[in-house]
C-alpha cells in the first residue's frame, strides 16, 4: 500500500511569497496515494525536520515528497532526516519549488502556483514507483600514490606520511626537487631555495612511511577510488640504488659529455651524472644516448672505478604494479617556448635567456658558479632588460592567462642583479605589476626604491644585435615615447605552461584537463584540490600557474583530502547506479564506449535455453565506477539498462503525470 506524505515548504517568503502554498496543499491532498499533506515555513530547520519524522511515524508513511528548494541544497539533509527514523532514504523525492519555480517566475504568481502543483504531481508520480535502495561499500587501500617529486609532491607526501599513511612517490627525473631545486632565492623572503627545499627532500627520503621511486613513471592506472591498480615503470638507471654511496668517483672520471638539462643546457654534465649536488637519491644515472658503453661498447670506466660495484649496465626497465587508495597528481610545469616570439631573438641571440635560465646563472651551483655572465662571451653584464608577460596574457602568440609568479620573480631578479653586480641597471618592460600576496607589494617596492630597478610600461617590439650589444626597442607608454635600451643581456619572463605530456598523464589517470592542459579541479572556488574523478587529487602548478606558498598550501590541502579518504576503512557507494536486465540485454555492448567512466565490461553468463546450458555475453556494470549518468540507458537498444532511482518506468510516470 503506497502511503505518500507531501511536505510543502514556504522557505520563508522565498517560495511562499510567490507560490500559493495552501492551494498547492489542497491539490496535493487529492493526488493518488497521498495520505498526508503538511505545510512548513522552514522545512530544513530542526522543527521542520522533526515534523517530517513525526508524520512518518504517526501516519505510517512509506514515501515522502518534499516540495522545497533545489535537491542540490537539501536532498542529503532530508535523506538523513528520514533515515534517522528507519525510513529508506531513497523513498524520498524533492519537487524543486524554488529554483525551478518561485525564483524564476516571481513576476507571475498565478502561473507559478499552477506550475508548483504540476511539479508536486510529477514528484508524487515518481515516488510511487521508488524502490528502497541500499548503499554498499568498497574497501579502501590505505596507501597513497603521489605523482611528481617537486615541492608540491614532496609536501603532499610528507603530510600524508606524517598522518600515518603509507605513501609511494613516483618521480620521472633521477632526482626529486623539481623546479624549486633549480631556483636560487625565493620571494619574498629571499630564502635560498635549496636551503629550504633540501631538508624536506631528505625528510622524504628518510621517512619510514614513504617509498621513493625516482627515475620512474606511471604507465597505467586501473581501478577506482580506494582501489587504484597502478603500473609503474622503474626506468633502468644503470646504477644500483642500494649499493651506491654517492661518492661521485664515477662521474669525475667519465669521459662522456652532454648538455646539462638541470642547467637548461647552459652547462655540461657527464654521461653518468647526478643532476645537481644535493640530488635525492644521491645516486647517479647513466644517459644511455651519450654513454660510450651503450653507444659503442667501449669505456666502462665508471664500473672500473666504482668502489662498491654499483654499476649495472644490464639493468633494464622494470614494471611493477601496486594498489593505492588515493592518488595525488603533482606533475608541475615547464616554461613557455620563447622561440615563438621571433622578435625577441630567443634561440638566435645567446644573451637572450629565460627567467629559469637566469636563475641558473645566479645560482651558486649553476654553470657559472653563481656569477651572472653573458652566455655569449662570459662578460659581466651591466644593463639587463627584463621582459615580462612572454607567452602569457597573449592570445595571439601564447597563452591567454596570467602566469601568476612572473611579476614577483622579475622583481626578485632585479634585486639579485643589483646585489651581485654593483653598478648594474635593471630595466623591466611591463604591462602591469601583479604582486598581490603577503609582503609581495613591499618586495616590489623594494626592487624599485632600494635597488634602482627601472620599470618601463610598454612592450618590446624588437631586439637586434649591434656592436655586441642587444638593442631592445620598446615603448614607454606613460611617456608616450619610443625607448631603445642598449642591453648586455635580456631576460624573458617566460610563462608557466603545462608540460608536453600533461594530456597523457591526465588520460592515464582519467582526469580532465583544460585547453591549456592544466588539470581541472572539481570546483574552481570550493573544491580546488579535488578532481571530478573520485580518489584523485591535485597539487601545484599542474593545476594552474602558481607560486611556492600557494603550491605548498595546495599540497597540504590535497594531502588532507586524500587523508580523509584513506582514514576510512571502507567507502559508501551511491546506490543510484545502473542495473542490467540480462533477460533483455543482447550483449551488443554499444553501451561500453558510451560510458565516460569505463564502468561497463562484457561478461559471460550461463543460462538455460530449453534443455541446454548456453553461454552468452552480456553487459556488466561496475557499481563502484558507475556514476549514474544514464548515458548507457539511452544507447541501449533493448532497454536493458535501467538506472536505479531514475528508472525508465519512473521517468515515464513523471511524463504521464505532467503531460497527460
Amino acid at each position, binding site marked *: 500500500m503506497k502511503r505518500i506524505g507531501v511536505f510543502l515548504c514556504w522557505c520563508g517568503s522565498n517560495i511562499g511569497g510567490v507560490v500559493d502554498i495552501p492551494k498547492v496543499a489542497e491539490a496535493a491532498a487529492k493526488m493518488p496515494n497521498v495520505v498526508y499533506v503538511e505545510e512548513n515555513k522552514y522545512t530544513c530547520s530542526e522543527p521542520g525536520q522533526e515534523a517530517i519524522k513525526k508524520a512518518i511515524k504517526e501516519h505510517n508513511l512509506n514515501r515522502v515528497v518534499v516540495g522545497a528548494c533545489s535537491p542540490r541544497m537539501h536532498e542529503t539533509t532530508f535523506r538523513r532526516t528520514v533515515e534517522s527514523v528507519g525510513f529508506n532514504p531513497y523513498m524520498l523525492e524533492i519537487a524543486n519549488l524554488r529554483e525551478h519555480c518561485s525564483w524564476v517566475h516571481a513576476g507571475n504568481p498565478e502561473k507559478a502556483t499552477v506550475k508548483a502543483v504540476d511539479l508536486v504531481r510529477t514528484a508524487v508520480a515518481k515516488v510511487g514507483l521508488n524502490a528502497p535502495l541500499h548503499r554498499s561499500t568498497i574497501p579502501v587501500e590505505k596507501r597513497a600514490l603521489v605523482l611528481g617529486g617537486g615541492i608540491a609532491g614532496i609536501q603532499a607526501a610528507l603530510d600524508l606520511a606524517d598522518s600515518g599513511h603509507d605513501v609511494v612517490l613516483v618521480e620521472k627525473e633521477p632526482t626529486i626537487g623539481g623546479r624549486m631545486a633549480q631556483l636560487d632565492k625565493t620571494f619574498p623572503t629571499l630564502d635560498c631555495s635549496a636551503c629550504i627545499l633540501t631538508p624536506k627532500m631528505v625528510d622524504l627520503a628518510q621517512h619510514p612511511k614513504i617509498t621513493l621511486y625516482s627515475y620512474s613513471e606511471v604507465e597505467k592506472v586501473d581501478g577506482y577510488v580506494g582501489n587504484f591498480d597502478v603500473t609503474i615503470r622503474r626506468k633502468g638507471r644503470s646504477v644500483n640504488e642500494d649499493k651506491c654511496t654517492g661518492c661521485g668517483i664515477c662521474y669525475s672520471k667519465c669521459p662522456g659529455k652532454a648538455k646539462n638539462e638541470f642547467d637548461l643546457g647552459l652547462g655540461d654534465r657527464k654521461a653518468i651524472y647526478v643532476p645537481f649536488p644535493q640530488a635525492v637519491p644521491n645516486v647517479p644515472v647513466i644517459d644511455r644516448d651519450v654513454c660510450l658503453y651503450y653507444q659503442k661498447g667501449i669505456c666502462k670506466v665508471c664500473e672500473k672505478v666504482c668502489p662498491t660495484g654499483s654499476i649495472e649496465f644490464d639493468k633494464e626497465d622494470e614494471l611493477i604494479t601496486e594498489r593505492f587508495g588515493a592518488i595525488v597528481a603533482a606533475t608541475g610545469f615547464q616554461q613557455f617556448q620563447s622561440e615563438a616570439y*621571433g622578435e625577441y*631573438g630567443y634561440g*638566435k641571440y645567446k644573451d637572450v635567456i629565460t627567467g629559469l635560465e637566469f636563475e641558473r646563472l645566479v645560482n651558486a651551483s649553476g654553470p657559472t658558479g653563481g656569477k651572472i655572465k653573458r652566455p655569449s662571451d662570459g662578460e659581466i653584464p651591466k644593463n639587463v632588460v627584463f621582459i615580462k608577460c612572454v607567452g602569457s596574457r597573449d592570445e595571439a602568440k601564447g597563452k591567454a592567462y596570467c602566469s601568476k609568479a612572473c611579476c614577483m620573480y622579475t622583481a626578485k631578479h632585479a634585486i639579485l642583479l643589483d646585489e651581485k653586480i654593483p653598478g648594474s641597471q635593471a630595466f623591466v618592460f611591463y604591462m602591469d605589476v601583479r604582486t598581490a600576496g603577503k609582503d609581495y607589494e613591499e618586495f616590489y617596492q623594494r626592487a624599485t626604491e632600494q635597488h634602482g630597478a627601472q620599470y618601463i610600461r610598454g612592450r618590446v617590439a624588437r631586439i*637586434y*644585435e*649591434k656592436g655586441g650589444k642587444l638593442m631592445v626597442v620598446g615603448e614607454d607608454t606613460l611617456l608616450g615615447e619610443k625607448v631603445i635600451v642598449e642591453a648586455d643581456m635580456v631576460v624573458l619572463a617566460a610563462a608557466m605552461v603545462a608540460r608536453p605530456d600533461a594530456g597523457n598523464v591526465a588520460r592515464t589517470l582519467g582526469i580532465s584537463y583544460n585547453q591549456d592542459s592544466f588539470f581541472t579541479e572539481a570546483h574552481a572556488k570550493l573544491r580546488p584540490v579535488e578532481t571530478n574523478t573520485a580518489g584523485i587529487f591535485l597539487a601545484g602548478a599542474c593545476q594552474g600557474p602558481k607560486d611556492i606558498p600557494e603550491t605548498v598550501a595546495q599540497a597540504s590541502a590535497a594531502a588532507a583530502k586524500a587523508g580523509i579518504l584513506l582514514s576510512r576503512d571502507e567507502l559508501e557507494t551511491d546506490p543510484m547506479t545502473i542495473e542490467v536486465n540480462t533477460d533483455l540485454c543482447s550483449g551488443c555492448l554499444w553501451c561500453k564506449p558510451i560510458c565516460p567512466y569505463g564502468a561497463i565490461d562484457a561478461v559471460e553468463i550461463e543460462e538455460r535455453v530449453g534443455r541446454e546450458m548456453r553461454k552468452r555475453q552480456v553487459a556488466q556494470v561496475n557499481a563502484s565506477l558507475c556514476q549514474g549518468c544514464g548515458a548507457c540507458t539511452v544507447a541501449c537498444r533493448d532497454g536493458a539498462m535501467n538506472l536505479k532511482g531514475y528508472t525508465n518506468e519512473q521517468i515515464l510516470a513523471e511524463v504521464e503525470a505532467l503531460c497527460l
Partner: protein
Amino acid sequence: MRYAYYPGCTLHSSAKEYRLSTEAIAERLGIDLAEIPDWNCCGASSAHALNHDLSLALPARNLALAEEMGLDVVAPCAACFNRLAYAQHAVVTDKATAARIGQIAGRPVTGESRVRSLLDVVVSDVGAEALAEAASNKLEGLKVAAYYGCLLVRPPKVVDFDDPEQPTSLDSVIEAVGAEAVDWSHKTECCGAGLAVGRTDIVVKLVGEILAAAKEAGADLVITACPMCQANLDTRQRAAESASSETFNLPILYFTQLIGLAMGVDPRRLSLQSHTVDGWDLLVSKKVI
C-alpha cells in the same frame, strides 16, 4: 608552371624595372605568366583607409577573373599581394562576406584561386636547385642584404608564407644564386611606406636606420620584393645620407634583377639604369657586369 599574373599599377609606372626584370627571368625559370585580362587596381592603401568592403571588393574582382582562368594568382608587388591575399582570406573564411563582396565586385568570388607573391613562387615552385642551375658564378663574393619590409610576411594568418619575425625566403634566393646573404638586423623594419610624400621626414629617418644597419652588416647592396620599399630606400637615400651624415651608396635592387644578373641577362633588359642610386659602377667593380 602557369599563373594568373597580376602586375598591379606600380609595375606599369614607378616600378617598371620590377616588371621588366620579372618578365626577363620568367621564361628561364619556367614561370608562365598569363596576365589577368582587364585587371583593376588592388586598392592598395587608399581603399583600406576609406572603406573595408571597397578594400576587399577591388582585389576580389581580380580574384574572380583569375578563378575564371582556373589559375592561382602571382603578384610581384608586395602590397598588391597583401591586398589580394586579404581578399582571398576574407572570402574563404566567411560565406556571407564572400557573397557581399562578390556582389559589389560584380562577379562571384569563391577564393579557390590561391594568391602567391612572386617571391613565394620563386622559392617554393622554382626552388633553390633550379635557381642555382640557372645562375652562373658571377655573383660570388657579392654581399647582399635581404630587405623584406612589412607586407610580404605579415600578417602570418593571411599571407601564410615564411616567418613574420625571422624570415628566410629572400635570403635563400640570394644564396641560391651564388651571392652571400648578410645577417642583419633590419630585415622587417618598416621603411615608412606611403608616408613618403605626406611625412617625408619620417621616411628619411626610417630609411636611414635601415641603410645604416645594412651597411654595418657589410652589405654591398640591398634587394627587395616591394616597389614601395625600393622607392623609399632608393629615392630617399641621398636625403637620408644628408640627415645622418653617413654615406651609404647602397644600390637597391629588386630580387628579380639580382636573379637576372646571376643568370647573365643583359643588364639593360633588367632596367638597372632606372634606379636613383646607381649600382652600375659597383656591379662592374664586383665583376657582376
